[in-house]
């Protein structure tokens, strides 16, 4: 008989290094190395991980789980299933639900749904402003003090464009070590915007979303964060100019962090020429030069982490003419594979770098305890076993997400998540949900 919760993972390569054994017991990494087998004893369940890379469980700072309100697109259950299959052990659930997650009651509801689902930890993000309306602050303190222990606040989907409101929010969350995650989009410059403003938008006759609309807000918010000594996190950075501003702000020592999505690391606005709304996303797909700058920034740490901006939508919201379609792409089940393609295959990041950008740093930015820890004895046993060798086409029909709006459908991408462990218990084994 095997001991429940005791595992011996043999032959795995921590952070892509030399093969070794990992012993897991009582939710913790009990031992690493040749002595692991002896440490966990003969009763441990065995998992042959020869050739697989072991990463600390991935943490997503930016997920739309859609529940409550749009259960036709996703639920906490299906979204966290997708997360586990993608190698994630924790996801931040964005606040733009219906009702908006702007009170302690709603964030606790989402947190409880996550606990019940059990596929990964769900960390609710609280709205910055009541109803995402950008008029007055939501009860940030109540959400911070709730059972959900909210630390990340965002009006994502909308920009906190009012400079005074943004300043107050940045200041206010200092009391409980919170961070404001800004969706940087100057609203007037992007009124009716449909895609990146550039050569392609001009040709296609679609209203442009200029890079400056993102960069102007990031520049302003970096200055505000510096002025009040607060923590700013910039969501889904998408332009080369934004990277320059972030690099400058970090050089000043300001408390500014940033994320990039997998799709902005791989796809460009040329895809919009098909007018297929599966490529419609906010911020929009940019140019090849932007993609190159984002990759370089993620490699050198100017951009701290990868966040999926997993944004599920039902078919009817995408099977339309471009202007009528919803913005957003799914991402949880493809993120690690896209990062391998864009960053590892290109030599920009090694697997230690991937672990840093997809686990350690997002956990630190989100003030998440029990995640993003190094794979050492005594750490919480959240880990992902990943096979980098296979190369297969993305099949949306096989996804656990309730929605199918992945821009990578049919695209050949490397890698396969084989297993995911959350606090010592597998949520995924052999690529399948437990």
């Amino acid at each position, binding site marked *: 008989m095997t001991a429940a919760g005791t595992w011996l993972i043999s032959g795995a390569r921590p952070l892509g290094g030399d093969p070794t054994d990992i012993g897991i017991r009582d939710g913790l990494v009990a031992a690493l190395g040749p002595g692991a087998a002896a440490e966990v004893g003969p009763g441990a369940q065995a998992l042959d991980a020869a050739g697989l890379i072991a990463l600390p469980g991935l943490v997503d700072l930016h997920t739309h789980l859609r529940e409550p309100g749009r259960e036709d697109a996703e639920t906490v259950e299906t979204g966290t299933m997708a997360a586990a299959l993608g190698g994630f052990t924790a996801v931040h659930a964005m606040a733009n639900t219906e009702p908006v997650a702007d009170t302690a009651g709603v964030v606790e509801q989402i947190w409880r749904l996550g606990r019940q689902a059990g596929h990964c930890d769900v960390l609710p993000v609280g709205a910055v402003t009541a109803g995402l309306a950008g008029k007055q602050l939501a009860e940030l303190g109540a959400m911070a003090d709730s059972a959900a222990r909210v630390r990340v606040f965002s009006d994502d989907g909308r920009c906190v464009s009012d400079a005074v409101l943004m300043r107050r929010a940045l200041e206010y969350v200092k009391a409980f070590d919170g961070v404001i995650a800004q969706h940087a989009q100057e609203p007037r410059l992007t009124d009716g915007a*449909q895609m990146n*403003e*550039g*050569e392609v*938008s*001009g*040709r*296609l*006759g*679609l*209203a*442009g979303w*200029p890079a400056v609309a993102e960069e102007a807000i990031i520049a302003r918010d970096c200055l505000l964060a510096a002025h009040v000594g607060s923590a700013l996190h910039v969501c889904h950075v998408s332009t080369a100019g934004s990277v320059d501003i972030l690099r400058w702000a970090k050089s000043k020592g300001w408390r500014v962090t940033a994320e990039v999505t997998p799709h902005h690391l791989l796809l460009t606005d040329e895809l919009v020429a*098909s*007018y*297929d709304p599966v490529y419609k996303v906010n911020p929009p797909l940019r140019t090849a030069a932007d993609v190159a700058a984002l990759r370089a920034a993620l490699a050198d740490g100017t951009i701290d982490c990868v966040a999926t901006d997993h944004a599920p939508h039902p078919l*009817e919201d995408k*099977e*339309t*003419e*471009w*202007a*009528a379609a919803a913005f957003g792409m799914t991402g949880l089940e493809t993120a690690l594979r896209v990062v391998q393609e864009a960053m590892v295959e290109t030599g920009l990041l090694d697997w230690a770098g991937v672990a840093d950008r997809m686990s350690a740093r997002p956990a630190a930015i989100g003030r998440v305890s029990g995640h993003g820890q190094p794979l050492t004895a005594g750490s919480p046993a959240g880990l992902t076993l990943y096979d980098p060798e296979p190369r297969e086409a993305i099949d949306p029909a096989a996804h656990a997400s309730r929605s199918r709006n992945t821009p990578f459908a049919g695209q050949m991408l490397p890698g396969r998540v084989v297993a995911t462990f959350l606090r010592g218990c597998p949520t995924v084994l052999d690529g399948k949900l437990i």
Partner: protein
Amino acid sequence: MNRHLISAADLSRDDALLVLDTADELARISDRPIKKLPTLRGRTVVNLFFEDSTRTRISFEAAAKRLSADVINFSAKGSSVAKGESLKDTALTLEAMGADAVVIRHNASGAPHRLAEWVHGSVINAGDGAHEHPTQALLDAFTIRRRFGRSSGSGTGNGGGTGSGSATGNGTGRGGRGAALDGLRVTIVGDILHSRVARSNVILLHTLGAEVLLIAPPTLLPVAVDTWPCSIDYDLDAALPKSDVVMMLRVQQERMNAAYFPSVREYSRRYGLDAARMAQLPERTIVMHPGPMNRGVEIAAGVADSPRSTVVEQVANGVSVRMAVLYLLLGGAEDDQ
């Protein structure tokens, strides 16, 4: 030719000349007492209009009827982006009715692309958002060609073009081939940013060898317009003496409210074609407008009604060009054998 006509870029130079030559032949039908050909008898052409556009719709309707097609007008205004039946459901409805061709006008750029994925028949773009309006560009090219004596029917073609290599149109008894527009200087003036007419004309006129110059206030030019196959300037007065063709675009009042320009009067002073500016034009130069015109704004009444103006010809030529497009896309040539 492609099965669909969605962008002017779908047309090679030979394709475009074939359309224009075929239109020349078909235009002769219009001079007959009985203006009808049996070519598309039994075929169904659906006019699917999500935007009001009486002139374009009746032009396509007349074209299809003169070729003996059955025409169904499907006015879907109001069921577009904001509400009602989805474009896909509309497409499936048309498919069930057995449409051989769907002529679509839609306020969303790219709607014809989407439609083409859902129907089997040919899709003809009759204007989509700020994207393209390829039959307008074809009728403009046709009008220019006629005015400059380069048509197959004019007998004064200067042989500048490559002609077409295909032998279609024998059912209409067509004769010689017309030329392209090589070397002609076409100046397009106005709201380029929001104009599907401008986009299609830049592509098609370039394909046919014309030199295109865009004149507009900088606010009404797309970013990266410098990547288009044309030149750009802001000075209308400098452009006029060098132009063989001046094409004026309609300017919408609502652009003023969005701060694209300070006032209609200022726009008119700087970018309108009035009598004084018309006097700067060379003798041969023609003035075009896709309609509907704002008389007194982008074009003065005296200019619109002058002998240089081709506005009325453009409307008449529209029917011939659309007949040619329907004829070629629906394989009328083969059925005529």
